[in-house]
């Protein structure tokens, strides 16, 4: 199947042309799938396909605005299809679901080799026209790699040993001063957002300043990330001083950035609020900035109770714990409205806020794809200085 065949501009959709042929035998269906693959991207339309016997077949996704589940219809023989809008540049993670009698089964699209991974499993990926994996997110042989190594820190605040992974950039030297980036859900950023590869590439290309990065994994994420005092104390009063003592860091707030996605965004913001002036910047990706304007019914379940309590309190009395915030959010995720709503609140405090959206969801590859925007804005590389 050629990319052109899959992505040609729409006239009549391929699936409709197939329907009009009447009865479909297995050979015709096989040729059709071999030619088009799945999903079929035609202009700003995506057609999902499935082959097999079932009572129902549905596309499961979490795209706000589209019906979920998206029912598939039998085209003929054992071929099922569903077509939906897919604006340019979109990227959607999905699975298929079948019902056979009372038995439901969810699985990745067997006709689509493109898969994304996360801590809760994998999903199929549907990429619209205009989306491609950024070149800087892929390994390159010419890129000088940084070094990643494990450390364990005895934390009085957390009353446990806290493992972290430390990243030192290529060409690390003690004669330089480096910014410090602390990443919540650090292991997942490395595993699912290719963050070491991204850092290596962006630093090599001079897009981002060489920096030292502490990747910090949680132990009990739902407890530690939504405004938890011991966690904030560990980050601000234990981790930062320890790293400042051991490494040639820029020893001021402007050189320190806290980063996180989803609940990790709340952990970043709440830590900064508890320790204003320690950090200069926040990098918040799809932060779980859920709030209520009245009452306590937020719809997020008990896990979000402390989040909503924190965000409501912040909204009632906004402060400027940092100078700059870079925020990103996917337009297809439920958190898009809270994130959009918080931009003017943050700005009202005098903080400089850069906010970007992407036609993507609440997932690691979306967060990966926004890393260059955020890191190059927060800590620009020496490109301005280099004239070869």
């Amino acid at each position: 199947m050629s990319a052109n065949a899959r992505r040609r501009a729409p006239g009549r959709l391929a699936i409709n042309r197939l329907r009009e042929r009447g009865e479909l035998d297995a050979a015709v269906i096989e040729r059709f799938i071999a030619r088009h693959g799945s999903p079929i991207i035609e202009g700003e339309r995506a057609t999902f396909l499935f082959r097999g016997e079932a009572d129902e077949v549905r596309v499961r996704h979490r795209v706000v605005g589209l019906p979920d589940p998206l029912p598939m219809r039998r085209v003929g023989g054992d071929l099922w299809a569903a077509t939906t809008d897919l604006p340019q540049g979109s990227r959607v993670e999905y699975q298929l679901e079948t019902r056979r009698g009372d038995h439901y089964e969810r699985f990745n699209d067997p006709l689509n080799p493109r898969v994304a991974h996360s801590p809760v499993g994998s999903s199929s990926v549907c990429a619209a026209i205009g989306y491609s994996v950024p070149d800087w997110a892929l390994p390159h042989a010419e890129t000088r790699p940084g070094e990643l190594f494990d450390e364990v820190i005895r934390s009085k605040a957390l009353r446990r040993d806290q493992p972290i992974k430390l990243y030192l950039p290529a060409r690390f030297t003690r004669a330089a001063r480096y910014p410090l980036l602390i990443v919540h859900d650090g292991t997942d950023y490395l595993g699912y957002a290719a963050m070491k590869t991204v850092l290596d590439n962006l630093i090599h290309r001079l897009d981002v300043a060489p920096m030292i990065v502490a990747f910090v994994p949680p132990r009990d994420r739902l407890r530690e990330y939504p405004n938890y005092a011991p966690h904030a104390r560990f980050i601000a009063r234990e981790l930062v001083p320890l790293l400042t003592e051991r490494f040639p860091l820029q020893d001021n707030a402007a050189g320190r950035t806290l980063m996180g996605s989803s609940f990790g965004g709340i952990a970043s913001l709440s830590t900064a609020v508890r320790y204003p002036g320690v950090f200069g910047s926040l990098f918040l990706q799809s932060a779980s900035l859920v709030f209520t304007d009245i009452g306590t019914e937020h719809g997020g379940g008990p896990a979000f109770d402390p989040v909503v309590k924190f965000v409501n309190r912040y909204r009632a009395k906004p402060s400027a714990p940092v100078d700059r915030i870079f925020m990103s959010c996917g337009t297809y995720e439920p958190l898009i409205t809270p994130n959009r709503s918080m931009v003017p609140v943050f700005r009202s405090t005098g903080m400089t806020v850069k906010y970007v959206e992407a036609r993507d969801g609440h997932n690691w590859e979306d967060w990966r794809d926004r890393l260059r925007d955020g890191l190059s804005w927060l800590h620009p590389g020496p490109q301005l200085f280099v004239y070869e």
Partner: protein
Amino acid sequence: MGASPRHTLSFTMRTLLLGPQRFQTTATTALRSLGVEGPVATINSGWEEREDQVGELDAALDHRAVHLRLHHRMLDVIDKDPAFSAHALAFRDRHDDLLAAYRLRLHHAIDGVYAVQRRSTSAPTFGGVDDAIDGVRAVDRWYLTQLRALYDDLAEVAPLDSSGVIGWHRGEIAAVLGRASALIMPGGNVGTLLRTLRLFAIEIPESLPVIAWSAGAMALTERVVLFHDYGPEGARETEVFDAGLGRVKGVVALPHARRRLRLEDKVRCSVLARRFLERHCVLLDDGTALDLEADGSLPAGARILGIDGAIHEVRPR
């Protein structure tokens, strides 16, 4: 840096500014055109840790190069003179703080220029654009004044003469330059290049012919200006960075202009030219070869940005 006795007779100062050498190597021809013999010194400290990877450079210079290795020497100073090194690092921290404050002020000042500029297309602005540009120039002046004060502070607490290590390196550098028939200054990181030039108090004798390109060309000017319209964050505002060696007069050097500047954006180019009104913003693209006048000014035919935002050529005097 000591002047070479070989160059004290009557001479015409020769300075050649070239376009970037990566895709179009003109350094060989330029060197031969000088008609000098013997070793040529190079300052390629802008290459930083790649300073010793000089195979291609050696070939382009007919294998006559003697490399001054200023970056290597700077690391040696940092290693062997911890007291000076500590002062230098403290200076760099203060310079970073100053740069951060400058960028903040510059960003708001330049936004003001573009806002008034946009309005000027539909309503009278009563000279508001020029006045707003004057505001940007005032921010540039403030930054350079503060930077000079930082250098003065550094010189007071850590004078170059107080470091035996620096003194030793300066002796070696002077000896190499004294034997050189020309000096070659390639590109690289202009910040690092300037830092090493300053650390070893490099002064290029007027009698010594110089060929420079990219960051090397910038370092020869009186005022080094940083620019990049195509970074990952889009156009970053042009910044004044530091004073250069001042051998090239009345010039803001813009290497890689086509690759780094939105030359089709006349408004932006016009603001750039008007901001540095007392100097020519000269474009140093691939293939450029400017043999400067004896007083260090631009020759006829050099391509410069006009205050109308268009590209012009310097007229014959």
